[in-house]
Structure formats: C-alpha cells, structure tokens
C-alpha cells in the first residue's frame, strides 16, 4: 500500500510541477538556512572529549581580596597563580593533574636544513597526555625524574616531526626552541580539536599546540606565557621570580576525578589548602571559594557558543516557520483542488484513514526532496562561512548527525504542515463532489 501511495504522490507531483517545485524549494531554503546556522551551533557546542568530559575538572581558586571582582560570570578568576598551580601539582594526591601554559618559540635545527619558524608551544605536566587522550605514535611522555629535574625534553606532533626531521619517528633527535636545545622523547598524533577547551583564554577555536615541554621548565628557563597574565593589584614585576611569587593569574589547571567520592576528597583537599594559605596571609576573603567545573560546564561558563550564532539559530528557526506557513497555504490549495477526485475515491470505498495516510505520504515525500535541497543549500552556506572566516574551517561543517537531521527535520516539519490539509481533504463528503460531475 505504501509503495502505491508513493506512486500516487509522484503522479501528483508531476501533475502540478510548478506548485510542487515551489514547495520543495521553500522547504529546501528554509531547511538549508536553518541547517547552516544549526551546524555551526552544533559544532561549537559539541562535547570535545565525550568519553571523559564529566571526569575532567578545571580548577578555579578565589585568591583575590575581599571586594575585588573579575569579569567572569561569578567573579572567579579564570586562571591560577604560579604558586597555587605548583602547590596543587605537587600535592600528595592520587589524582592525575595537568598544569598548563601557552608559550612559543622560534623552532630551528641550528642549521640551514629547515627554515626557522615560529611555533606555539604548550607547557604541560606529564599527566596531561593521559588526561586529554593524546595517543603516542612513537616513544612516550617524559619520565617523572625528567619532569622534576626540568630536563630539556619535548613531545611533538607527527606533523612537526615530519616538518623538522622528515619522519614521524624522531624520538632521540634534538632541535632548538630559541636557544634551548631539546630532545624528542615522544611523537603524538596531531591533536585534532574544534574547541580548545583546556585553555579558552585566547580564542576558543584556535588550533591546539604541536610541541609540548615539561612544566618545570617555566621556572628553570624563565619561560613566560604567550597567553594572558592578569593581575588585580599593583605588583611591580622586575625579574621573572617576581612573577612566580606574584598574585597574578596566568596558568591553567585540570584534575581528573573519576567519581563523586574522588571529587569529595579533592574538594576537602582544596578547603584544607585554602585554610593553610590563609595562615600565610593569602586568601583573605571571609568565605573560601573554589570551583570545579567539568568540560561541558567549563565551555558554557566561558560562553564559547558565540552569541551571534544563537541569534542566527533563533532567527533561522523563525524563518523555517515562515516557510512552513507558506507550504501549509500551498498544500491547502493543492489538496482542496483535488477534492472531487478524493470524493470519487471515497465513494469507491477508500476509508478516511487511507485518504489521510495517502496525503501524509505525499507531504512526506515533498519533505524528503526539500531535505535534500536543504543539504545542498546548507553546504553552500557553510562553504560561504568557511570562505569568510578561516578559523571556522573545522566548525562550519556538517557531521553525520547533522546530515541525518536535515531530512528528518524537513520531513517532520512538512508532515506537521500537512496534517491540517490532509485532515480537511479526508473529511470531504463524497456526495457533494459526485453530484457536480
């Protein structure tokens, strides 16, 4: 019966090609525009590490004096001081922890083989690779001893390895970061990430770094940040050590907590830590405050999804509504014109339900066509977005779920729009139309 209905729908489509085409285009454009903005929204708000996003927590500490405020939604500083980062990293706790900072160097081989280039570099503690699921191709992370002794070692990505040494197995090779000679201990796959969730300070959609060096090098080699340094009181910084001792915020800190009880243990530790620091004259606020936010909370806390994009999604759904109202009007016209024919079918014994179902199949087919056109329109739209904004490359794309969603929205929208016309036409009294013919 279903295939018969599809056959009928196709005949009906061919009988009024212009109106049918108009409807398909209306749905197509509506779906296309909605899908364009929805795809970008979807990519922006997608969980970047779904397998453990509820286990990784960004740590925030309220170390500012009473009355000082920050521009974050809850007035908590986004980053940590060096002193707190170091203390949390070295605390005797059974949890994996990652202390992070963005910096950069001119990378070269001290020879003419490769033209020196500037490269952003991530300073990280060794747990970071495991926490953020970075798979090694060759070698592995630097050892605990190397981390504590600030050994000049590095983990690099496959593409940097190929660029510098022409191979992805460069373990043991040395290269230069400015004037510092470092040895490669591991090569990882390129870190593909559309949201740089672990450090959102300088643009949420920037690419992750390709070179990683131990956190202990900050102190040993006086490596300063290429990210933000924010202070809240006047602290003259004359030498690098002043910055390490200061109350300025410039480092990121993550902890992996696998369940609620681990979280409680870590929270208890933080409360105790703040109380201890209070004795040393820091954390002068009456109420000790700290925050642990998991990856998705962190992303929404940072308001990563661009507000323009939210407006666009809202407007494009309203646009889709206009297209649907349009289609509803056209369907009404199309179906009612066919009332005499339906009258004959009803008189020949078709039940109301069958007539209703037949028409729903017909609008469903229109929706499917519209959905396909919608995907094409959306691809054009996304292409346009990629052309105007280079860093939207990874964002302005339809993944499989969005490709499936397009026809789904199109078909269900059309069926909703078709319900009333179909209901109207199946209630036709056969007698009225039989009389006039």
């Amino acid at each position: 019966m279903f295939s018969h209905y599809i056959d009928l729908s196709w005949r009906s489509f061919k009988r009024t090609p212009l109106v049918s085409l108009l409807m398909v285009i209306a749905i197509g454009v509506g779906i296309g525009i909605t899908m364009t903005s929805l795809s970008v929204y979807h990519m922006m708000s997608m969980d970047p590490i779904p397998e453990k996003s509820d286990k990784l927590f960004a740590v925030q500490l309220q170390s500012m004096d009473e009355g000082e405020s920050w521009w974050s939604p809850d007035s908590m500083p986004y980053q940590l001081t060096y002193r707190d980062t170091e203390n949390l990293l070295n605390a005797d706790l059974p949890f994996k922890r990652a202390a992070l900072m963005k910096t950069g160097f001119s990378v070269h081989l001290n020879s003419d083989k490769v033209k020196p280039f500037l490269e952003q570099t991530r300073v990280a503690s060794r747990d970071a690779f495991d926490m953020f699921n970075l798979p090694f191709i060759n070698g592995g992370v630097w050892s605990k001893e190397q981390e504590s002794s600030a050994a000049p070692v590095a983990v690099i990505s496959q593409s940097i390895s190929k660029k510098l040494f022409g191979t992805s197995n460069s373990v043991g090779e040395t290269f230069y970061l400015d004037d510092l000679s470092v040895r490669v201990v591991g090569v990882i796959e390129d870190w593909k990430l559309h949201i740089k969730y672990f450090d959102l300070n300088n643009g949420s959609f920037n690419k992750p770094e390709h070179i990683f060096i131990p956190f202990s090098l900050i102190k040993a080699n006086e490596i300063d940040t290429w990210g933000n340094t924010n202070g809240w009181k006047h602290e003259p910084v004359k030498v690098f050590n002043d910055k390490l001792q200061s109350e300025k915020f410039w480092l990121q800190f993550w902890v992996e907590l696998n369940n609620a009880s681990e979280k409680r243990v870590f929270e208890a530790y933080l409360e105790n830590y703040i109380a201890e620091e209070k004795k040393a004259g820091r954390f002068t606020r009456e109420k000790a405050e700290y925050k642990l936010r998991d990856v998705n909370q962190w992303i929404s806390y940072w308001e990563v999804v661009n507000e323009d994009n939210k407006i666009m999604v809202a407007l494009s759904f309203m646009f889709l509504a206009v297209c649907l109202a349009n289609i509803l009007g056209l369907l009404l016209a199309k179906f009612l014109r066919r009332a005499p024919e339906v009258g004959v079918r009803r008189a020949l014994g078709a039940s109301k339900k069958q007539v209703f179902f037949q028409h729903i199949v017909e609008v469903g087919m229109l929706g499917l066509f519209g959905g396909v056109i919608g995907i094409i329109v959306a691809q054009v739209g996304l292409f346009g977005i990629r052309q105007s904004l280079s860093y939207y490359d990874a964002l302005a794309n339809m993944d499989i779920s969005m490709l499936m969603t397009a026809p789904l929205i199109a078909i269900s929208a059309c069926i909703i729009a078709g319900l009333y016309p179909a209901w109207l036409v199946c209630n036709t009294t056969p007698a009225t139309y039989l009389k006039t013919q």
Partner: protein
Amino acid sequence: MLEIKPIFNALLRSKVGAVLLLIQIAITTAIVSNAAFIIKDRLDYLNQPTGYEEENIFKFNVMTFGTDVDLIQQVDLDEQMLRAMPGVVDAVQISAVPLSGGGSSTGFRLKPVPEKSKSVNASYFETDEHGLNTLGVNLIAGRNFTEGEVVLNRDYSKFPKVALATKALMDDLYPGEDGLGKVIYMGDKPLKIIGVIGMMKGPWLKIENRKDKSVLLPLVDPRKLHQFLVRTEPERRAEVMKQIENAMHTNYSKRVIQDLTGLDVKKADYVAEDRLMMRMLVILISVLVLVTALGIFGLTLFNINKRTKQIGTRRALGARKSAIISYFVVENSLICIAGLILGVCGAVLLGQQLMSHYSVPALSNLYVAVTAIAVFLMSLLAVIGPARRAANIDPSIATRTI
C-alpha cells in the same frame, strides 16, 4: 465604498488561508525589522573611522633566537634601515598594533597607587618618537616627545616622565578641562601629558569604553618577540612589503619574520565575525521577503481559482474590472494590516528579548515602521498581478457551467 464588510465576511468563511498569510506577514515583519537593525548596527561598527591610513600601513613580527646581539641596538639599526627604504614614510618598533585585537591596557589614575582615585582603563603603546608619525594620527594640542625623552629598556628607576594621550581618555579623566599638561598615573608612576591626540582607535574595536582611549609611552623595550609598524607612501605598500623579509635578514639572520600584514587586513580579520553575521542576515532577510511574497502571490492565485465562478457572476451582474481588482487588494490589505499589527508587536518583543539576552542595542522604532511599510508595499505588489488576472475573467464563465 471599499466594501469592507462583505470582504470581511467572506474572509471569515475561509479563515485558514488568511490566518496563514497573517502569520507569515507577522513573522516576516518581526524578523526583518530586527535583522535590518542589527545589520545597520554592524555596518556602523565596520565603517567607523579609525584615525589611520589603513591601506598604507603594515606590521610584522620579529622573533629573535640569536643571543649574540643587543636587541635595543638591533632595533635601532632595523629602524634606520626601514626608514631609508624607498617608499617608506616612517617606521617604528611598537609594543602593540592598533585594530588587531592584541595589546596591553591598564587603569590610568588621577593619583598614584595605593591612594584611592578615579581610574580609567586605556590601551597603551610603547614606542619611540617616530611612533606618532608612523601611526599617522592627528596631534590636536601640544607636542610629540623628543628622542631625549625616550627611555630605553625597562627599568623601574627609569620610567618615562611624559606621554601622549587621546582626547577621549583625558576628557574622561578630567571632564570639562584641558587635558594638556595634566599628570596621570600608571600605577605609581606619574606621566605628564605633553600632547593630546584626536582620533586614534586602540587595539580593541569591540570594547566600547576603551577603543578611543589610548596612551603613547616613550619607551623602547624590545623582547625576543617584538613588532614593527611601517607607513608607506600611497600605492607603494605592496612593493615595500615584498622586500621586508630579505632586508631584515640581511641586517641580522638569526630571527624569524612573521605575520607581515597590512593594517586593513588586520582590521578585516578582527571584524571578520561581524562581517559574516551581517552577510548572513542580509541573505536571510532577502530570502525571507521573497518567500513571503511568493506566499501572498500563491494564496491570491488560489483564491482566484476557487472563486472563478463568483467573480464571473459579479462581472455578469455589472461589476467593473476595477471593482474586482480593488476587492482583492482590499482583502489582502486587511490581512496584511492585521499581520503588521501583530508583526510590530512581535518585532518589539523580539527586540526586547535580543536586547536582554545579547549585546544588541535597543531596537529603534523607525526600523519597525519602515519595515512595516515595506512589507505592506511588497504585499500590494504581490497581489496586484493575480488581481488583474481575476479582473480579466470572462463574465460568460459564470453562466456556462451552472
């Protein structure tokens, strides 16, 4: 005369079509007026004057990895070389590039810390006496700093004593007074303002209360990574930019030249998202208006087909063609006006929602009014064709099929 009563009664008998059209018109009005307003807001933002000859200025970064050179001396040599290049008006090492989205800012105060004082956040640029000329901004009072006033290297005992500031900053710190000659504090360091700059946008165009407030400090403190700004004669920028990398490497080779970009390109990158949003909105409203117009067109055609006999009968009974046209025009106008009333309310509500949730300024009523008129005209245009077709229906049709 316009026969509103019978038209209205006829409408009540086929409500669905009319209601659909009404909804379309209402939503269209709401979206178009808000979108048009946002577009205007973005256009103003994108086209605002900056105070620079953007197409004649470019910047580049220098990352020095060699350790056998004194950076301050090297910067001096580089500057001399750049200034001597044919086509170059002036060149300077500077700590931040305007319109780029990256730079430094701090609170400038009336009294030194730790005293309580009014503090105004402003961007600052560390540069030498060529900075003003390279930027090409307009000094409206006072003088530029001299070579002797420029402090080399950062040393807290030798912080600059003088500075240039924009008028917007001085007006904020000293409202109603002449800013020239006043002293402002950066932390605990006093700075005497020896020159006031007119229009000069800082690094962040998006930050409304900071973009016009800037300070030029006579301080040269190059780091491993520092940047140069170069202004060229009109039309000669591309030619000069091509030679930069080689020229800089000839001067000293253990460094990377990077991000060699025109100021106009920097600005375009910085505002790219806003431009994209504007384009998307333009496409959205054009397609939307087209779809709504098609909707009106289709619905009127449908009504005419349905009422062919009635129209024929009316014509047979003596109605003029103009009466038939006016019937459809009036019918459409009734729906349209109802839709517009709803749409205007919707537009205002949507505007309020957008304003309360996002950083969109309050919707101006002018936009709603103009949109309403435009939608009304569009609906008239869409209906006039089908209405004329209806007027041409032959009266004989009425008699033939009954």
